[in-house]
């Protein structure tokens, strides 16, 4: 029973994932992502990890999806549908690649399922300890896995800075000295100011 349910959910998750990248409307794509997240949460639940399932629904399906929806709503949908038109012309190749990739993946999965992976000692010990209570997770997180936990925080910090760097528009030089520097550095008279203006124009915000 559980096994059938798992395969149904896994298939659904893969289906939703395909929907995310193939849907023409961004709204549909976001909703497919939501579906994939929920399927994953159910798989966690099936494996006995209630906390993970809860966190998945709260964090991904809750917080992150709302953000995605905001972005989709704020962007100009008409423009996006124009963008979406382009890949359809070459979709023939994409479709073949997609189908091939999925088939290969499913084949591997089936192959693995046919060879029984034995239950390992770690699993049994984990279940015996009652893995799914919040306390053991917290203890593991702040003792045994303290270092990866901190590394993850650094990862998030670096990502945050990286995203800001890429999303921020160029700052116009303020003082005369800086302007001179900008001109000097670039080798011609084109300074940061016109760059910034062009970027603004490009983003359709001016």
């Amino acid at each position, binding site marked *: 029973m559980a096994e059938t349910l798992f395969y149904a959910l896994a298939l659904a998750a893969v289906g939703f994932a395909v929907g995310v990248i193939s849907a023409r409307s961004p709204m549909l794509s976001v909703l497919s992502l939501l579906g994939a997240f929920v399927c994953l949460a159910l798989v966690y639940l099936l494996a006995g990890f209630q906390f993970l399932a809860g966190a998945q629904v709260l964090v991904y399906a809750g917080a992150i999806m709302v953000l995605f929806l905001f972005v989709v709503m704020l962007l100009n949908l008409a423009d996006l549908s124009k963008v979406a038109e382009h890949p359809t012309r070459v979709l023939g190749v994409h479709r073949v690649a997609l189908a091939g990739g999925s088939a290969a993946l499913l084949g591997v999965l089936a192959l693995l399922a046919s060879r029984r992976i034995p239950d390992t000692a770690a699993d049994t010990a984990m279940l015996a300890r009652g893995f799914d209570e919040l306390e053991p997770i917290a203890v593991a997180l702040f003792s045994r896995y303290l270092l990866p936990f901190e*590394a993850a925080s650094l990862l998030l910090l670096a990502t945050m800075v990286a995203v800001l760097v890429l999303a921020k528009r160029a700052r116009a030089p303020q003082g005369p000295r800086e302007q001179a520097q900008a001109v000097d550095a670039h080798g011609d008279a084109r300074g940061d100011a016109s760059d910034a203006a062009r970027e603004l124009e490009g983003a359709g915000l001016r």
Partner: protein
Amino acid sequence: MSNYLQSLPSIAPEIAMTVLLCAVLVVDLLLKGRDSRKVGYLTLGGLGVVAWLLLGQWGELGSAGAAKRVFGMIDIDRFSTFFKLFTVGSLAAVVLFVLLDRRERRHGIGEYYLLLLGAGLGIFFMVSTSNLLLLMLGLELLSLASYSLAGFHKGDKRSAEAAMKYVVFGGLSAGVMLYGISLLYGITGTIDLTEMASGPHSLAAQFSSGPVPVAVAIVLVLAGFAYKVSVVPFHFWTPDVYEGAPTPVTSFLAVASKAAGFAALLRFVGKLFLVDGADGAVQQYGARIGALLAILSALTMTLGNLAALRQSSMKRMLAYSSIAHAGYVLMGMATMESSGWNAAMFYLAAYYLMNLGAFGFVLYFESVTGSDDIASLKGLGAKALWVTVPMVVFLVSLTGLPPTVGFTGKYMLFVAGVDNGLLWLSLVMALNSVVSLFYYFRIVKALFLAEPAERSMPGQSALAGSIFVLAVLTVLFGLYIAPLQAWCDASVESLRLGAG
């Protein structure tokens, strides 16, 4: 808990890097991004402190002789300390490149340094851990910082293209690798490589009961590494990213990032398969992995060298050349014997020196001529001998001719291949070196054999100085190999012991 406090001094370099990263962030905020050169100097100073801490650690490891494991997942041994030292060295070189280059300085805002430090920290985690979770986090830290560094020239289409391609390929391969790791966890019940090699549910035991899942998992993880070090079926991103990224970033990607990928790959394969007294099943699988690596190595070096022949841009040429060099290092690994791994590590060290130098040269000329086209170098050889003569040394070393470190490395690889029944691969390598001679010496030809140019060369003397130092080291380590050799022995030994 006190246990953790006691082991804090062992990760002092990592802590210093983190503090430096935060300091760079705060100082840049306080300066309101007005004078980013100060941030650059701060970064250089901080890197000096980290290097000092690492050297202290290196000394301790030498006297006590004991590699240790802290936090249950970080291995402090000569292997990791060496790679950390070289990472700090190449980071310092990249920061210098940024500070000294007129065009880079315009983009050289504080975040540049912060992201470089973040990438360096990711490498620190990658090269020293045998825990796959921390390995993955380190890898992602390095990758995410590299993506945005590659796209740092926002107005430049090629830079944006480089970042986009890097993200797509990187994301895909990280996914593939994670899938492999999760399979490994499912099979063995642990994410620690040492436990995986020895525990009650070790890979050896699982090989005999069901070899297919193990093989699938390991191939998937290897694919992730292969992407990071641009081995042939996963190399497509390399030329475009190297060409489009700002040149200092390219030198970081080609040198530090690639070597870190190799360090992690060496540890992964070493812990699992290069075990003393391994039983038959492991050895048999080790041999199969070796055969796989040998085929990949032959493909990688051949394709890299053949493609490099046709490039007119120096950055693209060096990108394909770096693919070829990945093949050479893989060849040492493919022997699955200590001698071959020694040679592979020696070659990695050589790779650091000569590629850092070569990219410094590209940067120097890019700031003078405004392009990285080989044709634009015509006749400039005699104008700046302080830079062009070192470049000839690097090119000689990259080709693998004496008396340089590149020659010593290739010689060791060749001998290791012949000794371990990979004669065909040794011959492929020798032929490839001949091919590489053609494209490396196109640069020499352009520099010295064309009509002398009229134009003057207002270059950066500090940049030229650091290029010169690298060239001296390239020759020095080619002639006096004892220190590098001693390190290679110690590293291979610590990999083997750790697995036992």
